[in-house]
């Protein structure tokens, strides 16, 4: 089943064009890497797909529902419940402990305090940072923060995880550990993953790689199935 679709996405920032008509389908449970040189529009595409940005033209469809036309409140609810978002620098809430950070999405979705804390501890443990439960981000290393952020992005067991360079700030081994665990858990719970990276080694964790170039899908890219990728332009 198709989990996520982009149809002819166009987006500019004022005079700066970022996306020139991106069409793609992502299946349920599929892990797709989006790669391409700096400035080619990867983050813009992710923001449009996740409902953070509204495209100027084109459609974003999530499980048969066109979401780009939804009001901000509805898209924001979608991001809290069905989507998970993970950035290069975890963006944890500085005032909260690791456990509170991870529990936050559940609390916002209406889960009770105790259940949220229990789930948070389980997810911290899955990323090997259970002992940091009561520590605040300021006292953690970048790698530890990113493990907590990854736990937070997955705690709601989202249908789609959007990850923008999630291991970009980590050393090779730490990045690999975080990613291996992320991919393993995503596959277990059939979470669809859109993974942005500029590293071939990271893209190799995905089922498929989409290469962007100047805001369009580069069809000379990598083993790209044109029928899946749709006709960009």
């Amino acid at each position, binding site marked *: 089943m198709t989990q996520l679709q982009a149809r002819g996405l166009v987006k500019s920032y004022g005079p700066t064009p970022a996306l020139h008509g991106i069409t793609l389908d992502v299946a349920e449970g599929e892990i797709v890497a989006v790669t391409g*040189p700096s400035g080619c529009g990867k983050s813009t595409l992710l923001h449009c797909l996740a409902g953070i940005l509204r495209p100027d033209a084109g459609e974003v469809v999530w499980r048969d529902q066109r979401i780009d036309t939804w009001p901000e409140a509805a898209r924001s609810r979608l991001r809290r419940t069905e989507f998970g978002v993970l950035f290069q620098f975890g963006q944890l809430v500085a005032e909260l402990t690791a456990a509170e950070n991870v529990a936050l999405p559940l609390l916002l979705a209406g889960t009770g305090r105790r259940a949220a804390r229990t789930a948070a501890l389980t997810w911290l443990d899955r990323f090997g940072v259970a002992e940091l439960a009561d520590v605040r981000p300021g006292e953690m290393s970048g790698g530890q923060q990113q493990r907590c952020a990854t736990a937070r992005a997955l705690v709601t067991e989202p249908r789609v995880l959007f990850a923008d360079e999630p291991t970009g700030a980590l050393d090779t081994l730490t990045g690999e550990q975080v990613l*291996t665990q992320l*991919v*393993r858990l995503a596959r277990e719970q059939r979470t669809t993953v859109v993974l942005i990276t500029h*590293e*071939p*080694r990271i*893209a*190799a*964790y995905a089922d498929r*790689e989409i290469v962007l170039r100047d805001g369009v899908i580069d069809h*000379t890219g*990598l*083993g790209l199935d044109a029928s899946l990728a749709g006709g960009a332009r």
Partner: protein
Amino acid sequence: MSTPHVLLGLLAGGTKHGYELKRAHDERLPQARPLAYGQVYATLGRLVRDGLVMPAGQERLAGPDRTAYALTEEGRTALDRWLSAVEPPMPHVNSTLFAKVTVALLVADVDRARAYLIAQRRAHTDRLRELTALKTATSSTMDDVVAADYAIAHLDADLRWLHTTLDRVADWHREVHP
């Protein structure tokens, strides 16, 4: 790869028969080309001739493949010397991949070179994905992981080079064919 030294290393822990050496080699170096029996015995023959290894008795009267081999003092010294010597870090750039792009530019045009780079990039990417799957499989051993890591790091480097060269190929062609 230096098969003689690898065999010396495998004998450092105690005597082994030829077939045990082959098995140990293939197990410890899981992504290497499996060692042929013929190569094991040919290499052992040379190591015996050079005094680095000696036959250490026969298990039965069942022919040469039953001979066990042991490291000599000289063999141990040669192994130590090999382990202490630093490998020259890429003294020559003689990769076939690099040569092929260069020749494609010389004898054809930018499109030919670009087509080759794209095809190679696809093959590299497929192999990278295969090795990543092998490495992250729950059944993989540390031998598998370390061997896959080595290949992954090199393929990753090649891929970066392929990407960069794709971006440079037009300028490069102008220089080769002014």
